[in-house]
């Protein structure tokens, strides 16, 4: 069986899931949202964005929104419940890492 594209979950895919957790967005809006939530560190280009979207669609973690009567050429994407679940478990896993890091006292100061 071929290796699944999303295992392990690439961080671009994770950020796209997070971006869609708030609202349904089209490609460019996803890119902007990801940029914002990573404080400008991740700027998705078209190749990364749409190859991730394609993989997420195939795994049914996101879905393309059905047409509304107002109609628009841009495609909007929506998080599925499976996508939300995966994003949550991924975030929990990262939080575990953070707890471990905190226990090792690698942070200076008191934050996080």
């Amino acid at each position: 069986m071929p290796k699944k594209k999303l295992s392990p979950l690439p961080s671009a895919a994770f950020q796209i899931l997070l971006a869609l957790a708030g609202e349904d967005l089209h490609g460019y809006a996803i890119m902007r949202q990801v940029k914002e939530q990573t404080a400008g560190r991740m700027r998705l280009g078209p190749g990364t964005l749409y190859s991730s979207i394609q993989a997420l669609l195939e795994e049914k973690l996101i879905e393309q929104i059905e047409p509304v009567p107002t109609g628009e050429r841009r495609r909007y994407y929506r998080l599925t419940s499976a996508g939300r679940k995966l994003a949550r478990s991924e975030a929990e896993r990262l939080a575990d890492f953070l707890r471990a890091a905190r226990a090792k006292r690698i942070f200076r100061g008191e934050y996080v």
Partner: protein
Amino acid sequence: MSERIYAFLLRLYPSHFRLVYGDEALQLVRDRARHESPMRLWIDLLFDLVRALPRLHLHPAPIATRATAPAFLVLDSDAPRAASLFLGVVASLFLIFATIPIGHVLARGPAGSLRPRTAMQVAAQAPPQFTAADRHRLIQAAAANVKRYYFDKQVAETTASALLAHEQAGDYDAAAGQVFANLLARHLTEASRDRHFTMEYTARVFPDFSKPPPPQDQARYRAAMLEVNCAFEKVEIGMNHVGYVKLNAFPDIAACQEKAESAMAAVNHADALIFDLRDNRGGFPNMVVFLASYLFDHPEYMFNPKDPVTEQTWTRSPVAGSLLVDKPVYVLTSSRTYSGAEQFSYDLKMLKRATLVGETTGGASHSGVLHNLDDHFAIGIPEHKPVNPFSGKDWAVTGVEPDVKVKAADALATAEKLAETRLRRR
């Protein structure tokens, strides 16, 4: 400029990816080019290219049914052409030279820094299999619907057989869901040369499009529209006596006639009128015609590629009490102005009744009638040959060109200036 170069670079991507996401990728570059410096954008684009290309070329074409069936990893179905290879070399060389001096200045993105190692946790709820038989059934149904409903029987025949030929050639193998729908849509428009064909997919279940929406849906629509003031965001007359109507959709007359009447009454005494459709994604043709009715002293034909000519395609002019019939009108457009809003812009422009200020519109003409193929797929087929009194083509895909081309953000100020100059001259 960036867009054209990128369109060229897109050839490096596998054909199945290009086919489905090429337009969207270009749109993204267009959007980013509007807001980012070219230098920054191109560094990003080239990094993106080297990062995404190997992954895409090493993965098979779109798949949804890999979970249980044995499968082989294949390279792209078509070998890269010489031009593509050349481009690849050029792009790589450029990258090598570009990244040496600036590589360590750039903020390192987290793209490669986090590599979680969990297995996918969604396999438990694997979707029902989408098999070759399903694909065949849908292609047959699509072809049959095209033959039955498309207005030009000869084109319908060639279009239907083109779908079957694509199936024979294996072009749909392993495609499912949205990817399959997008491929079909592309082939439909290619074969028919009619840009109004659409193919829709939902993971849920489509309603029966042959029936009108149930009453509870209509009640919900009405309530939602009233909550947002029927999409009239702002209606006012400024100090300069120029009326301003910001309308973000064309809601159904059945729900919003009163709101529309009071909006038009509020600007009735303006010396000039600006319709701001920069955030308007369209809606109901009946509202398009209703609002346009205020602007003419006799009925005018409001062309709409979806509908055959009926009584409703004519404005109900003159509207009793309307003082706007001889006032200058400006329509503000953006690249996000779609569908019904494009009809309003296009017809007023063609009738020489308004000056369009802003950007070329989005180019959405939803003129097909939707037919269910099964619960998840529906095909949009144009059923009438659009009779366009103005020119051979409408705004499908290409959009409506403004009379005065400025950035959407500058459109209001530009239109106000135009209106004031014109009013001073009178």
